C-alpha cells in the first residue's frame, strides 16, 4: 500500500467494512458503558463520562505518536504516502484532544467543583492541543506540499517530548487530576464490569480513527495526484 494508486484501490475495498465494524464496536462500548455498567460507589453516575473522556485522551496522545512515526518515515525514506498520512491524522488528533479537554471539564464541574484548574495534567494536555493546531497551521501556510510535509514531520518529532510529560504529570507533580487507574506494574483499580466496556470503547475509538484517517487520506491522495494518469482513468476525465 506504499503507492498512492494501490492505497486508493485497496482502501475502497475495506472502507465499507471499516465503517460498519467501527460504528458497531463504538456503539456497543458506549451503550454498555452508559446503561449497563454499574454506578460508581463514590461518584455516582457522572463517572460514565470516562467512557468518552478516557478513550479520547488515549487517542489524542496515540495519534501524536503515530504522526511522529509517520514524520520519521517521511524524513528518512521520503515515502510520499507517509507525508499525506501525517497531514490527514492531524485534525483527527486535534479533535480527540479537544474532546478530552471538553469532556474532562464537564466532568470536573460536578466532581471537583470547578471547570478548569491550571494543574500539570490539564495544562500539558492543552499544550498538546496547541501543538496540533500549530502543525495544522504550519502545513496550510506552506504552498509546496512536499516541503509542508517535511516541516510538519520535523515539528511532530520535536513535539513528541510532550507525550511523556502528559503521561507522568500526575506522578511528578501534585495535581487535582487523579493518578492513572491503569498501570503496567499493578492490577487496575477499577472493577472488571467497568473496565470491560471501557476497553471496548477504546478499541472502538481506535477503529473510528482508522476510518477517519482512511477518509482523509483518500481525499489527500486524490487531490495531490489529480493530474496523474491513474486518477484520470478512474474518474473518466480522459481529455
Amino acid at each position, binding site marked *: 500500500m506504499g503507492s498512492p494508486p494501490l492505497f486508493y484501490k485497496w482502501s475502497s475495498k475495506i472502507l465499507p467494512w471499516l465503517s460498519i465494524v467501527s460504528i458497531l464496536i463504538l456503539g456497543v462500548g458506549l451503550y454498555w458503558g452508559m446503561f449497563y455498567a454499574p454506578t460508581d460507589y463514590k*461518584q455516582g453516575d457522572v463517572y460514565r463520562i470516562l467512557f468518552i473522556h478516557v478513550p479520547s485522551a488515549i487517542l489524542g496522545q496515540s495519534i501524536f505518536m503515530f504522526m511522529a512515526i509517520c514524520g520519521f518515515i517521511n*524524513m*528518512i525514506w521520503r515515502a510520499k504516502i507517509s507525508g499525506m498520512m501525517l497531514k490527514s491524522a492531524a485534525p483527527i488528533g486535534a479533535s480527540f484532544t479537544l474532546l478530552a479537554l471538553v469532556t474532562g471539564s464537564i466532568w470536573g464541574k460536578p*466532581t471537583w*467543583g470547578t471547570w478548569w484548574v491550571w494543574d500539570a495534567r490539564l495544562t500539558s494536555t492543552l499544550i498538546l492541543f496547541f501543538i496540533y493546531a500549530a502543525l495544522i497551521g504550519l502545513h496550510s501556510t506552506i504552498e509546496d506540499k512536499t516541503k509542508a510535509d517535511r516541516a510538519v514531520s520535523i515539528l511532530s518529532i520535536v513535539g513528541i517530548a510532550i507525550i511523556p510529560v502528559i503521561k507522568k504529570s500526575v506522578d511528578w507533580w501534585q495535581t*487535582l487530576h487523579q493518578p492513572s487507574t491503569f498501570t503496567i506494574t499493578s492490577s487496575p483499580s477499577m*472493577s472488571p464490569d467497568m473496565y470491560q466496556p471501557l476497553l471496548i470503547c477504546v478499541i472502538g475509538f481506535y477503529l473510528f480513527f482508522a476510518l477517519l484517517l482512511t477518509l482523509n487520506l483518500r481525499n489527500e491522495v486524490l487531490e495531490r495526484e489529480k493530474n496523474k494518469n491513474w486518477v484520470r482513468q478512474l474518474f473518466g476525465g480522459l481529455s
Partner: protein
Amino acid sequence: MNPIRKQRLYALIAVLIGSLVATWLVVSALSENMNLFYSPTEIKDAKVDEVTLIRAGGMVKEDSIIKDTRTLNVTFTVTDYQNDLEINYEGILPDLFAENAGVVVRGNLKKDGTFKAIEVLAKHDENYMPPEVAKLINEDL
C-alpha cells in the same frame, strides 16, 4: 541503508534528543511551580503572609468536619499524615467532599496558623467500583 538515509537518521535522532533534553530542562526548572498545591508540612515550614492567595491540599481528617447548622460555615482539618492544617470555609462544598478524601483549598494562611479558604475543590482518586464491591472491601478491613 544507504549513506544519505543514514545521515538523515542521525540528524533526526539528534533533533529528538535535543527536544527531549530541552523539555526535560523546562520540566525540571518548572518543577516546584507546577505543583498545584502545598501540603500542610510545606505550609508549616514556609513563610507566607496573610494576603497571598495559596492552594493547600491533602486528605480531610476523619471526624474533623464541623458544620454550622444555621450558616454555610464549615471547619475541617486537612492532613498529609505528618502535619495538620485547620481550614475555615463559608460556601457550598462539592459533592465528593468527604472524610478521608482528597481536597484542594484556595485561600490565605492566617497568623494563628489556620487557613481561610475561599474555594474548596474535591480531588477524586483513581479507584472505580460499584457500591456493592466498595461495601465488601470495607467489611474486609
